């Protein structure tokens, strides 16, 4: 095979990526069009009604956008107190040691558990616990889903943050120690400020993962179609309403679900893009 043919072969193979991405966007946009046209784009986003009574069908995405934002942000809040210590443990305190690699393996395994199994565990272990603690009567809801979601994103946030914490130059840390700082002070006043933008961007990417997480949320969020009014109430996320209703939907409802899919796709793509750009900048700096 000559060089030219080889180059063409690689090029053709690489073309498949833009083709698939273009296809994804094209399919979503064409099939979501009906819903957007029927309800109006802005109306669809802000309407909180989701009723499929024949003749009076009305679909709006607001409950699910709210549900997604609530579960994601709450998951982020629950995730930080665990992922940050893990990152410090692996990237600073026990950098390169055996215990650190054990902890890394633990978080890697956590990342490997399929989301449906997280859902089962949440449903059969965490949900009864939430009921027993009288936090919410039905056990499932935004809070339950977020708690499990938090566990699921800890590995991503932690491993990426640890990478940035590890990259803080030894020169700077020794400089700070030589002035008399304790390790805690070095971490707070040198490591965090220097690795800050990298750590921040790893949380953005963790959000990107949480946004689209489907099965766990579907099994735990309670599947009701109104705007959740508190963190213990039930709801649906964008991904979970799709998982729940896609199989049985047709016509306008199907198009509305695809429209929700399109919105979710765009939000996730946007968050991931910001995260990646920030990571690149943080790596260069």
């Amino acid at each position, binding site marked *: 095979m000559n060089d030219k043919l080889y180059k063409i072969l690689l090029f053709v193979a690489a073309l498949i990526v833009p083709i698939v991405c273009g296809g994804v966007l094209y399919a979503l946009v064409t099939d979501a069009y009906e819903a957007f046209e029927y309800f109006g784009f802005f109306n669809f986003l802000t309407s909180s009604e989701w009723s499929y009574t024949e003749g009076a069908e009305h679909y709006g995405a607001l409950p699910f956008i709210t549900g997604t934002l609530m579960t994601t942000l709450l998951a982020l809040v629950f995730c930080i107190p665990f992922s940050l210590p893990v990152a410090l443990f692996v990237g600073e305190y026990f950098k390169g040691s055996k215990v650190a690699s054990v902890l890394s393996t633990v978080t890697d395994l956590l990342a490997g558990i399929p989301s449906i199994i997280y859902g089962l565990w949440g449903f059969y272990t965490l949900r009864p616990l939430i009921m027993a603690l009288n936090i919410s009567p039905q056990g499932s809801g935004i809070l339950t889903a977020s708690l499990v979601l938090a566990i699921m994103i800890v590995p991503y946030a932690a491993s990426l943050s640890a990478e940035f914490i590890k990259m803080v130059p030894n020169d*700077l840390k020794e*400089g700070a*120690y*030589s*002035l008399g700082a*304790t390790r805690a*002070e070095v971490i707070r*006043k040198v490591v965090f*400020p220097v690795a*800050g933008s990298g750590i921040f961007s790893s949380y953005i990417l963790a959000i990107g993962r949480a946004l689209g997480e489907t099965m766990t949320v579907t099994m735990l969020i309670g599947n009701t179609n109104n705007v959740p009014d508190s963190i213990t109430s039930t709801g649906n996320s964008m991904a979970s309403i799709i998982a729940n209703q896609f199989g049985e939907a047709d016509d306008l409802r199907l198009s509305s679900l695809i429209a929700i899919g399109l919105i979710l796709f765009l939000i996730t793509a946007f968050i991931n893009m910001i995260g990646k750009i920030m990571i690149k900048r943080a790596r260069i700096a």
Partner: protein
Amino acid sequence: MESVTPILEFNKTCVSYTKQTMAVKYVSAAIDRNTITAIMGPSGCGKSTLLRAVNLMHNLYPNIRVDGEILLNGENILSMEPIDVRHRVGMVFQRPAPFPTMSIYDNVLSGYALNGIRLSKTEKDETVERCLKNVALWDEVKDVLNKKGTFLSGGQQQRLCIARALAMKPDILLMDEPTSALDPIATAHIEKLMLELQKEVTILIVTHNMGQAMRISSKSMFMYLGELVEYGDTATMFSNPSDERTKAYLTGQMG
């Protein structure tokens, strides 16, 4: 009559990385107040290791052991709290490394911030001005104090790091090849500075540059394979070394 306690005294100081290999072997020497003492030797002779031990840098790395005594004003620092020791002993490293997230102003005061010591606004301003004047950086940066320290040139960054160490008013300033990453002009600047500074602080400098040792130091140590081979007046050592190994090194017959 001249029996003033030396400011720093090594007493059979040993540093080892593993049980078998000793990087510094039984070094004993006394350093006089307000002098510049150069530590020379081929790379790997233990000169940096010895210097770092004075600032208890080895405490950061659990496998490094230091034995013997290092006396600061007669007190053994190896049994003192590192925070306390490092407060009295400043250190300047090979590569200039101002804190990149802090302004020039904050970099000078970083020792206070890191140690959680609060200063009033006027104290801060005074300290910054005094220290930057001490390192002859004031005129160059007084209008850009709020810029990040990393904006400065390499030589300026190193002077900023010296100012940062001086701000804590240390008794001793340790310098670990402070000019090896700098160009000749910046090096000359810093050497001039050191000669000025010895009025206020005792300087211990590791250097692989014999010319530098000759230009600035009053006393010199020559180390080889972890041992202190020779210690004495710089002028005497350079003109008439008493040990064959020192002679070989000074005449360039050794790496």
